[in-house]
């Protein structure tokens, strides 16, 4: 049976720079939407950030903007009119508070030019008019309680987690509003922020410290724990959980690792005794794992019914056969990839239909549109 892409026929106009808005637009492009990125003559500032990829654009720009078209409206009435037509015909407009949104003169320009059925998506790092980047948002969110160590300098989450999640939730809000529009025939606006996204995914931590009966369990106490590098081996850290199903498997695993005393410890003989003592167990196992190879430790844990995985660097992530088995990346050219969307539909990974556009690559095509005409597919 032939399949139509999930967002086939949808027109999206994107006035967004940075990560959150473009991430939302990129997911839509991967699902068959026609996403038109509006840029000024300098382009999305993300094009100019480090490190550059083969096209000369910043690597993250390439990852976040593949599958889109790029439109640079010329100064003057022709550009102005083209922009108005694009926005009026859009099913969805994505905007943030960055310089590309400023091109639309001000925020009311967008709302006054969209049609009654348009869904308008807004995002910002930390709410309107508070200048902040990923680092400041992470600091405001309190997430650093889960990293680093008391008395030492703070550490951030390496990933741009607040911005990507703001985009993740923006995509959700947009799809929900578009679904509702199918019945109501009315558009509306959807807003997310980086700080709001981080607060949402911190819910487990937030609820845990809201006056609990007792301050127990790792979600309460993690802030006081030392840094966690995983269980050490000769060649890198491992994240491991011994078998939860069988007490015999636990003993056998300890025997094989040479941790005889640990396996014979009566206070750890049963799963219900071991489950709350993961940190203590991992500390004691470390004495036996640090002089073994990572592969040997992982193999031993898995053979005895537990699960264990290596702490991988990105070259290892890419090289691991699991990434290939689930088609996790989009191949740009040999050796150059971007991450693909995090789901498969009927076992097929959606991929963007083309790479990231060069600045203004589609301006001419889009300027040729007659009044009121909807932009056609790329």
């Amino acid at each position: 049976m032939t399949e139509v892409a999930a967002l086939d026929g949808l027109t999206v106009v994107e006035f967004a720079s940075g990560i959150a808005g473009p991430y939302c637009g990129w997911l839509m492009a991967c699902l068959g939407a026609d996403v038109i990125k509006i840029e000024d003559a300098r382009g999305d500032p993300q094009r100019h950030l480090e490190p550059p990829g083969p096209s000369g654009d910043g690597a993250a720009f390439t990852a976040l903007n593949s599958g889109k078209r790029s439109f640079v409206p010329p100064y003057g009435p022709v550009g102005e009119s083209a922009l108005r037509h694009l926005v009026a015909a859009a099913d969805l407009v994505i905007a943030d508070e960055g310089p590309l949104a400023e091109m639309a003169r001000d925020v009311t320009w967008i709302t006054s030019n969209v049609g009654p059925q348009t869904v308008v998506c807004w995002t910002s790092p930390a709410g309107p008019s508070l200048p902040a980047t990923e680092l400041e948002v992470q600091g405001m969110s309190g997430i650093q309680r889960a990293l680093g160590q008391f008395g030492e300098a703070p550490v951030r989450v390496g990933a741009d987690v607040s911005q990507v999640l703001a985009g993740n939730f923006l995509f959700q809000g947009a799809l929900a509003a578009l679904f509702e529009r199918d019945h109501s025939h009315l558009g509306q606006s959807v807003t997310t922020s980086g700080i709001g996204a981080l607060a949402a995914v911190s819910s487990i931590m937030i609820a845990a410290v809201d006056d609990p009966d007792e301050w127990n369990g790792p979600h309460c106490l993690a802030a006081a724990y030392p840094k966690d590098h995983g269980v050490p081996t000769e060649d890198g850290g491992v994240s491991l959980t011994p078998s939860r199903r069988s007490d015999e498997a636990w003993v056998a695993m300890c025997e094989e690792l040479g941790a005889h005393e640990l396996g014979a410890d009566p206070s750890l003989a049963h799963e219900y005794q071991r489950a709350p003592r993961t940190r203590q167990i991992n500390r004691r196992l470390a004495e036996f794992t640090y002089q073994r190879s990572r592969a040997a430790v992982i193999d031993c844990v898995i053979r005895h019914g537990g699960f264990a995985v290596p702490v991988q660097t990105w070259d290892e992530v890419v090289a691991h056969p699991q990434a290939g088995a689930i088609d996790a990346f989009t191949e740009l050219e040999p050796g150059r990839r971007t991450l693909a969307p995090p789901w498969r539909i009927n076992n097929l990974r959606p991929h963007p239909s083309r790479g990231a556009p060069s600045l203004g690559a589609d301006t001419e095509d889009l300027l040729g549109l007659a009044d009121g005409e909807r932009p056609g597919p790329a």
Partner: protein
Amino acid sequence: MSGMVRWPARAGFDDGPLAGVKVLDLSALATGPWGAMLLASLGADVVKVDPPDGDHIRLILPKKKGDPTTYTICNLGKRNIVLDLKSAEGKAACLRLAELADIIVENHRPGAMTRLNLDFESVSQVNPGIIYCSSSSFGNEGPMAQVGSTDPHGQAFSGFVSMNGAYGAGPEFLRYGGVVDLTTAACLTQACLVGLHWRARNGRGCQITTSQFEGAMSAQISRSSNYLVAGQDVVPLGTATSTYAPSEAFECRDHRYINVSAPNQQTWEALCGAIERPDLLEMPAFRTNRDRVANRSKLSAVLAEEFAAYDLTRWRYRLSRYQVPHGEYTVLDDAVAGVSRTELNRYITSVPHLPGGELKVGAPPWKFSRSKAALTVSARPGQHQGQFTDLLLPDDQMPEGSR
């Protein structure tokens, strides 16, 4: 169709953007349930099925007024029934619910639902419109398909850990926050919403899968591009980033830290104004962003000396005046306790807690101008069993003409 068994109507919140969408939540622990919880706060009618011995997330501490907090935040706004899916009756009742649902959410090991005859193919035979959304550990194919995973395993395997930590130190885990679990859950929610649009265009259901591996990778799309697109290793940088400089925490004279970032030339010039160092603008090592990224350590040392000279409050005024992105550190526990009022407090909301009183949670992450999105109380296991009585009867006891 009178006389047919129906999905029982629910009272209360039903005006979100997903009003009328019926979700059967067969998941457990955090990822599946929190993903389905997001659908519930968008207005979907979510019925969660728990096994007779309960969702094991109930064992995760702490508790508030006797109820486990992590279970609660993962199950807000749902109805709950208990079914033994290993029994023939339980399985039949579940299949009946599946027949009436729009979406199924599950997060068991690949193959587990097939053994229960509740997989996509089996459900499709009775409900060709079903949108079947699964989250696994590492994906449902490949050498890791049957390896289990919790939040830290997903972090480790996906590269997420490799970019956290002090500069030059070993990579470190995000400790016990469940952040990667909930990020994966957000990807599962996306999958469900994508499924609704896919079904609208194709006129039939579909199967959508995600995994903790994919969810953890998704959060790294920008930083991982350094390796994937530009061939550059991704390493821990403390509070710095690889894309622009400066962006770092600096220790002030009063030993408090302030985060300061200059993501573009304009803010870099403003920063030099705020710290009264216009001479830095003339230094070749710091002229462009590319220069500053290449000379990050040198730049950090210069700025660290400036920030150490005055207290944080002074810097707050200076950086605000010059519109330089900056921020202070929130202690999450203090913000939740209300002993400090910070930006984070605007995004914490209270929900009714089942044993009484309220529980603080991260607010739903979207605001709609017209539709409503809201969090409501979490259900006790089996609390809504009675509403589903007809559906749960064995076949030979079904009311006349109901099937």
